[in-house]
């Protein structure tokens, strides 16, 4: 008899497609949170696989801090065009202008935390009952306990003590008035799985993920790209370095790493040898030990 085995990437793919289809089937108005980062790109690619040859049956939602790398926005717009999906953009600036969010001040001001406000407002104004996110459990301690179907109360809050047990592949998307879900099809993927899958499926990723020359400054042990959002302070020296990004978020808090990895094969080799996690370069997680848990409770992705 033939050997019916799937390798780890095939198993993860099958699971993610199953979760994406469950989301389409169990909710009335799901949206897919698309940031232009590698995880959301892989998730969007899998969504296309899940429903082919039909179009992806939900819109993409981008919560835009206004502090994105230009490359991210260009990539986002091309992707959305290529796949023929509807894009909804929630602007953090709008929340600030309305007065529902207040810009941070001080040395390391970032709009990262404000994304939660804009996200909840976008969910509200479009009546989304489920938002698909590219979050992975290996990213951070608080995420290790996250469910595939993560229940949020009417305030968008995550209560770690009141999560539904999740067994086999039976996902319970039942909810009361005003409640909604975050769904994470990539829960069981690691950073390495993402790179390997992009390689074998030949998925194009933004060039920020590969080695390129860029002006950077070193701030609190993190290499930040010099952009109009991050300007060098008096004592900071601008250096031209060959760098790449392992994660891409807000330009104000996403650190670059020195790297010569020009393609996915190089990146896979580099990540395999790396001694720090990808979030080691994220200034937003360094704020406090329970930083992610706090942000999640407030409705963060």
């Amino acid at each position, binding site marked *: 008899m033939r050997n019916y085995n799937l390798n780890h990437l095939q198993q993860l793919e099958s699971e993610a497609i199953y979760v994406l289809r469950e989301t389409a089937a169990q909710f009335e108005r799901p949206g897919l949170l698309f940031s232009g980062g590698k995880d959301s790109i892989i998730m969007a690619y899998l969504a296309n*696989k899940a429903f082919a040859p039909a179009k992806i049956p939900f819109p993409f939602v981008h919560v835009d801090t206004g502090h994105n790398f230009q490359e991210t926005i260009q990539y986002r717009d091309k992707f959305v065009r290529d796949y023929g999906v509807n894009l909804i953009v929630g602007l953090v600036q709008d929340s600030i202008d309305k007065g529902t969010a207040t810009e941070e001040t001080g040395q390391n001001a970032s709009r990262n935390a404000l994304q939660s406000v804009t996200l909840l407002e976008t969910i509200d104004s479009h009546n989304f009952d489920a938002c698909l996110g590219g979050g992975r459990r290996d990213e951070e301690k608080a995420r290790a306990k996250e469910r595939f179907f993560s229940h949020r109360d009417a305030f968008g809050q995550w209560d770690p003590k009141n*999560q539904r047990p999740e067994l086999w592949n039976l996902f319970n998307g039942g909810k009361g008035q005003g409640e909604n879900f975050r769904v994470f099809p990539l829960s069981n993927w690691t950073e390495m799985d993402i790179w390997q899958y992009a390689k074998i499926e030949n998925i194009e990723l933004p060039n920020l993920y590969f080695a390129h020359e860029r002006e950077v400054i070193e701030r609190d042990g993190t290499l930040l790209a010099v952009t109009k959002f991050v300007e060098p302070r008096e004592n900071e020296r601008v250096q031209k370095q060959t760098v790449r990004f392992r994660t891409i978020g807000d330009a104000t808090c996403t650190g670059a790493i020195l790297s010569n990895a020009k393609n996915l094969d190089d990146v896979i080799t580099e990540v395999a040898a790396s001694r720090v996690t990808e979030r080691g370069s994220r200034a937003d997680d360094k704020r406090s030990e329970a930083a992610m848990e706090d942000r999640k409770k407030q409705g963060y992705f």
Partner: protein
Amino acid sequence: MSTEKDYLDMDMLRFTTAGSVDDGKSTLIGRLFHDTKSIFEDQLEAIEESSRNRGDENVNLALLTDGLRAEREQGITIDVAYRYFATPKRKFIIADTPGHIQYTRNMVTGASTANLALILVDARNGVVEQTRRHSFIADLLGIKHIAVCINKMDLVEYREDAYEKVLRQYSDFASRLENVSELTFIPISALKGDNVVDRSENMTWYKGPPLLYHLENVYVGSDANHVDSRFPVQWVIRPHSDKHHDFRGFAGRVAGGVFKVGDEILALPSGFNSKISKILLGDKEIDEAFSPQSVTILLEDEIDISRGDMLVKPNNQPKISQDLDARICWFSASKKLVQGGKYLIKHTTKSAQAMISEITYKVDVNSLRKNEDDLEFGMNDIGRIKFRTSEPLFFDAYRRNRNTGSFIIIDPFTHQTLASGMLR
């Protein structure tokens, strides 16, 4: 990990760990991560700092696994946490569950997706109540492989007779387990690293492999059911485009067996027959699909099929019934199981209403004795019930197929998941 693309040959093992408070489970996971280079410097730095702040004398590896602030404050683990590591051979997913008596439900949850249960026994104390409970739950949830790690061998001078004693004790008890087909005993010291990743030089009398080697090589390929073809329809794909005008594809995940292009199929509940004309994985055509692949199946004839229906083979049909008999584990702290009570059931891609017709017995998870007198079902209780559903379920016994034999019970008012069940 190598630079070549040999990761295409890697497969995956899901295992569950359960242990009592002091039997060294966190130390063992810490050791596995550390010795397979799966702890990163920034993680280690973070827990070193936390350990110092807490006034711990040594680096407390438990902090690596106890993620939530509430847990760190209370010093206990309150939920299932999933952890990942990989060797060039396999990717591992650990469902790490707490060992406290009140958290049976977490153990059940963690075990539901696992191929293997890793059970820790303290070499000094031998088999205790918790060891039996963990093993019983693993067996109940259909786990076929149990690895018993007899830990803290360093505290019994690495003596073979200490190991033998625990092995005999456990084997006596394990003869009562129904599903476990492979039982492996490994003497280890998680703290010192003996027989975790590397073979111990302190126990030359032990001829078996160290734990990691066992985890990398245990054969789980035959655990999935590749005999009974079952395809619960999850979603119907209709593109409504000019290019794919008449396209109607049935999307789902193969829950058992194999489906090939040209196969005769039977659609349930309608009873119509057809043949498979195409199978798609994404937009690629493939010749056959097997469990657990997510695919789209196209049929030669236009028949009415929707979510919750099931495609099977005419000569191998599942059981079809509205009267069901199951073992369940109750999860809810606020609601009790009520005879005559009405609930929602989720089984494969189907939802139905259910009424409890009989609470047959409860099982004492420590003694494994049945109790037919006290039928009060509360959180963490395990037992057997009979119920009737509003429409027939297409199912197999859980022991034969986890995918088509499992279900959850949902509260129709609060939407909470109240219980998990395994059909007989």
